[in-house]
């Protein structure tokens, strides 16, 4: 890694009533790379993700994005500092159209949301950009459909478009292919490959095929700590990684 890290974590820890879900994690995400966080269930991936996006406050440790300290900031402040996230469980506004979602996301850096005395038709000024983003994720034909009526794969695509609408420096994707059929997984991988251009992506993912085809760098977590870090080709044969996964499989089945 020669490029400077855009997102760093130092000694990041989160304790829930004595249980350390994330336990002293150091992380450097290089600018312009796709960085995957993997690990067995309960390794602390989602907790780490929530710490990085401000949804949880760390017990100790520091987070910086682009050199700016974001430790302890609210989710909305983190979002404004250029870190956009998607959710593991699809998280949308069921009655709002796909286009409505994107208009809202595009309006968020502006003070338009406070204008309670103006007509909501003003949001139509983001219409063109919203349709462009929908087209990018293959939802151009579903712009007017309420999000609640979209098929699962399309909801995930809308999630991605929402994150992109914030034009983030760092895009954090929480299991973007969770619960998808093979066809949707391939489509999503192609989509992420397409949108990663010029962006930094941090990705929590279970599907090793997805990780191998997307990630430049992989961090393997276990028991809230970093087990191994390196390019996918290196870590896949690491005996510690194999035993971590097999050990988990034994517990799960």
């Amino acid at each position, binding site marked *: 890694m020669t490029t400077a890290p855009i997102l760093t974590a130092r000694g990041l820890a989160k304790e829930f009533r004595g249980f350390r879900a994330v336990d002293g994690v150091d992380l450097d995400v290089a600018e312009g790379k796709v960085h995957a966080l993997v690990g067995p269930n309960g390794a602390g991936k989602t907790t780490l993700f929530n710490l990085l996006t401000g949804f949880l406050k760390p017990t100790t440790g520091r987070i910086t994005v682009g050199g700016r300290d974001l430790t302890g900031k609210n*989710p*909305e402040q983190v979002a404004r500092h250029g870190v956009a996230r998607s959710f593991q469980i699809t998280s949308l*506004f069921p009655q709002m*159209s796909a286009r409505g979602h994107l208009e809202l996301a595009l309006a968020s850096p502006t003070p338009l949301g406070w204008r*309670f005395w*103006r007509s909501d038709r003003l949001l139509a000024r983001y219409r063109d950009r919203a349709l462009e983003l929908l087209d990018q994720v293959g939802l151009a034909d579903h712009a007017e459909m309420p999000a609640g009526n979209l098929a699962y794969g399309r909801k995930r695509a809308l999630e991605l478009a929402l994150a992109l609408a914030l034009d983030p420096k760092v895009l954090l994707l929480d299991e973007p292919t969770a619960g998808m059929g093979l066809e949707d997984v391939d489509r999503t991988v192609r989509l992420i490959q397409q949108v990663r251009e010029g962006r930094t992506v941090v990705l929590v993912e279970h599907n090793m095929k997805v990780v191998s085809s997307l990630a430049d760098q992989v961090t393997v977590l276990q028991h809230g700590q970093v087990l191994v870090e390196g390019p996918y080709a290196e870590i896949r044969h690491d005996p510690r990684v194999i035993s971590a996964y097999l050990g988990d499989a034994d517990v799960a089945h």
Partner: protein
Amino acid sequence: MILRLLAGSARGRLLLAIGLFLALALPWMIYPPIAMDIACWALFAVSVDLLLGFTGLLSFGHAAFWGSSAYVSGLLAVHVGLPFPVAVLGGALFAAVIAVPIGYLAVRLSGIYFAMVTLAFAQMIYFIANQWRDVTGGENGLQGIPREMFGVDLSDSFVFYYVGLPIVLLGLLLAWRIVRSPFGRVLVSIRDNPSRARALGYPVDRYRLLSFVLSAFLAGLAGGLFAISHGFASLQEVYWTTSGNAVMMVVLGGIGTLWGGVIGAALVVQLNDYLSTSEFDGIGIVTGSIFIVIVLVFRKGIWGTARDLLAPRLKRKRPGGAKSPGDDPAPAPAPDVNAPA
């Protein structure tokens, strides 16, 4: 849907015309002071719906704003001699100002906790109104509030209705504007999914606070006008049952429908008036039973159910068209306390 219609379609203009006609004809159909009561309660209920139906927060302490504005409007009219619309505006601004600290502390919570905190603050206001006799008159209430404007005597209830009605209509217009604004769009998204709204960069608590303050302002307009209309402000105005009444009107009319509150108010005020003149002293049992039946039979309230019956015909006009936020009375997390899901 109705809101969209009001924005310009023929059916919307028709409904608006019917509504305005009814508002203007009301004192001919029923006893004028009751007509004024309906108008005030309608605005109060709409202010509660702005929070409950469009922000997802159940306030159980809105009597604090209705009642404190009633006292402040009355005091301004009695001691300063302000024309009544100015006194009412002063009362509403006072309600909005006290809503800032109350809301600041309450919006961090949601569901039943939000309801309890707002109730607790309303009880504090009640306590102050009860204890501060020199100003509020204590249990006797604040009496002798003049009903005049620039020296013109408005003691005739029929005349006063038409002078007071514009305040209510302006309040309703403001509520409608808020719901159909970019701000209203953000509120509905916060109601449906606060985490997602946060992840998009919207400071959820501050949006909730502004909604709370605007709602308190509207409740204050209604309460101030109510006090002027009656010529006195009593402890009843800050009592918790007043908050409960407003919530009941919203649930009856339909949560998240805005105009449902108007229907709920008309129904409850009329019913209370009818029952109180009928020498029957179990009013609570009758209104309670009607409340239960309506909630069980029409889960979306009267207006919400009527709108759903109209909806299929309208949907055909816009095939594949998305419903806009705020068009559907989706029950927010908070109202589950009242309405069975």
